[in-house]
């Protein structure tokens, strides 16, 4: 490793691996290291199950009822891919799809008055849903048609709404939508965690609803995809891409020092050796003095032996508990997957409940979600800090990713990747830049 690299990357989380892949494909010489003996950092899927018990300091070995330990791949951070979202676009442009298999998540549900309902997002589903009364349904349908036709580049589709000025609150008013409909539109379709969006210009909200319905239209059952063997396969796929284009990978490497000269990074010291670099990408855990805490997320991994009640025995689903249903400021999410995704032993389900921490008693905050999951065979609770870089890295040339937030998809992760790319390269991110620059499959006609 006593060499000069263009870019050194520390940590093999998804953000770092995607950036590493982009840099290698574009001819940069990349050294990618992780202090852990496994790939993925916080976005790893832990296997075998014994390792998860150790990690959470659960005394004793998993009981025999949990089956074979190596049949488990348990995500630490629950997320799904939006079928029409940015991560799928990145997977397609890089052709990392070659290394992965996906399944469509079977259902998307929303919590109302102690019960869960399927999220209606097409006109037909909305008309059939018991969430709304008849007149409400008609108005909601009109709203969905408007959203489907909306194109931010075509003023003819605005119908008197100014996407950059009109607030979403005013848009809801224009379509005469009631509080319940506003709740699930904002939280279960636009996937906002709080109500802050209501007084902001409506353009982003409308585009988020479009993303939801276009994702749903892809495969039908839900807008979400999930990779077989767990989310930890995603960073590994991009790591392989980076390696094919010359990236060097080292795991189990303790990082002793980030070496600076005149306020700019010049290298990294590990096990007494120094690798030199021009730029550094890392996750917050490698540069604790350069990040600040902006909040906390609680995540509770629950192992179940049954599908979640009232989900038609779905082998995978998402449940959103909108904040004002449980008198909170931010939503609670449940992501559930199962043995059908090669992440759990036969007949087992993994449900992960998560939310942004608002009080001193986060475990109490998340209780409404856990009540939907009972009986729970084993719980693994984590409370993690949300860390963000203190500066843009312009001077230090150290580019720090943000901690994975409480959202249940990868859109904010992709925004972070695009933003880091822009700061590093000085030009706007372009998906085209991710395309493989030469043929790397041989023998195909």
């Amino acid at each position, binding site marked *: 490793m006593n060499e000069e690299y263009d870019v050194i990357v520390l940590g093999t989380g998804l953000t770092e691996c995607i950036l590493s892949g982009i840099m290698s494909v574009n001819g940069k010489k990349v050294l990618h290291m992780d202090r852990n003996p496994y790939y993925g950092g916080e976005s790893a899927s832990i296997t075998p199950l014994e390792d998860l018990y150790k990690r959470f300091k659960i005394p004793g070995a998993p009981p025999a009822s949990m089956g074979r330990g190596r049949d488990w791949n348990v995500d630490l951070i629950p997320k799904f891919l939006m079928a029409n979202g940015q991560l799928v676009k990145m997977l*397609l442009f890089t052709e990392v799809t070659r290394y992965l298999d996906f399944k469509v998540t079977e259902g998307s549900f929303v919590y109302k008055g102690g019960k869960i309902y399927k999220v209606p997002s097409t006109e037909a589903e909305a008309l059939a849903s018991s969430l709304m009364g008849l007149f409400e349904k008609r108005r909601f349908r009109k709203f969905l048609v408007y959203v489907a036709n909306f194109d931010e580049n075509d003023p003819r589709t605005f119908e008197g709404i100014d996407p950059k000025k009109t607030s979403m609150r005013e848009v809801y008013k224009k379509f005469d939508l009631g509080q319940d409909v506003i709740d699930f539109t904002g939280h279960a379709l636009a996937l906002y965690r709080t109500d802050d969006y209501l007084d902001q210009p409506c353009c982003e909200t409308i585009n988020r609803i479009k993303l939801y319905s*276009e994702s749903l239209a892809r495969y*039908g059952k839900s807008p979400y995809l999930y990779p077989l063997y767990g989310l930890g*396969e995603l960073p590994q796929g991009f790591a*392989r891409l980076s*390696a094919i*284009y010359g990236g060097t990978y080292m795991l189990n490497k303790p990082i002793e020092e980030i070496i600076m000269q005149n306020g700019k990074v010049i290298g990294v010291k590990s096990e007494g050796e120094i690798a030199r670099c021009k730029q550094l990408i890392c996750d917050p855990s490698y540069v604790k003095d350069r990040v600040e805490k902006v909040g906390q997320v609680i995540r509770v991994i629950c192992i179940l032996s049954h599908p979640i009640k009232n989900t038609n025995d779905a082998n995978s689903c998402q449940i959103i508990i909108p904040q004002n249903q449980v008198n909170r400021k931010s939503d609670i999410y449940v992501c559930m997957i199962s043995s059908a995704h090669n992440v759990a032993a036969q007949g087992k389900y993994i449900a992960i409940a998560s939310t942004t921490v608002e009080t001193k008693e986060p475990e109490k905050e998340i209780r409404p979600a856990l009540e939907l999951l009972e009986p729970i065979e084993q719980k693994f609770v984590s409370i993690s800090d949300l860390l963000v870089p203190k500066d843009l890295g312009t001077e230090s040339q150290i580019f720090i990713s943000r901690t994975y937030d409480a959202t249940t998809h990868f859109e904010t992760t992709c925004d972070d990747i695009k933003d880091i790319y822009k700061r590093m390269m000085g030009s706007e991110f372009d998906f085209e830049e991710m395309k493989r620059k030469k043929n790397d499959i041989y023998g195909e006609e």
Partner: protein
Amino acid sequence: MASATDARYGQKESSDQNFDYMFKILIIGNSSVGKTSFLFRYADDSFTPAFVSTVGIDFKVKTIYRNDKRIKLQIWDTAGQERYRTITTAYYRGAMGFILMYDITNEESFNAVQDWSTQIKTYSWDNAQVLLVGNKCDMEDERVVSSERGRQLADHLGFEFFEASAKDNINVKQTFERLVDVICEKMSESLDTADPAVTGAKQGPQLTDQQAPPHQDCAC
């Protein structure tokens, strides 16, 4: 249009139905034992003597005929990730056969075979087949691992064994063909179970960049 229940052959070209089976095969072993050379000799019948660490190859494709069946082999390279033992677990997924390779002139590469075998058993499908190959058998003068030791280790691990040379084209084709036969034998044994892995079928929907057709909901 993709549907969630569609099982498809192949990795990327869902329209390519020009084969009966597709097998994913991996070549694994220490750096510079000759994995890439072995792959090039088999797929292209070429050999480049200069040592270049593997960069730029994802996999090679070769279609062969066995028992009147067209079998498409997808032979994956390690992308150089074996050097620091950082091969991704994702690489092992869905592989039906392995060529575990060492260099008969390099003791260390032979000593690492046990480790690689453990990796295979940990991360691959239970029925994956493995052949042990001692490469560079043209370099008899520099040999440090006797054929006997190779054979004994293979017996101990339960693998079939070949010595081969990518440079002199010795036993290269035979190795791949034997591996394919072993996979086919295993496949006919377990045909009743119809495991999708055995046909290389993709389980989920094919991701595409195309928009789904708009929904035609009734307007009531």
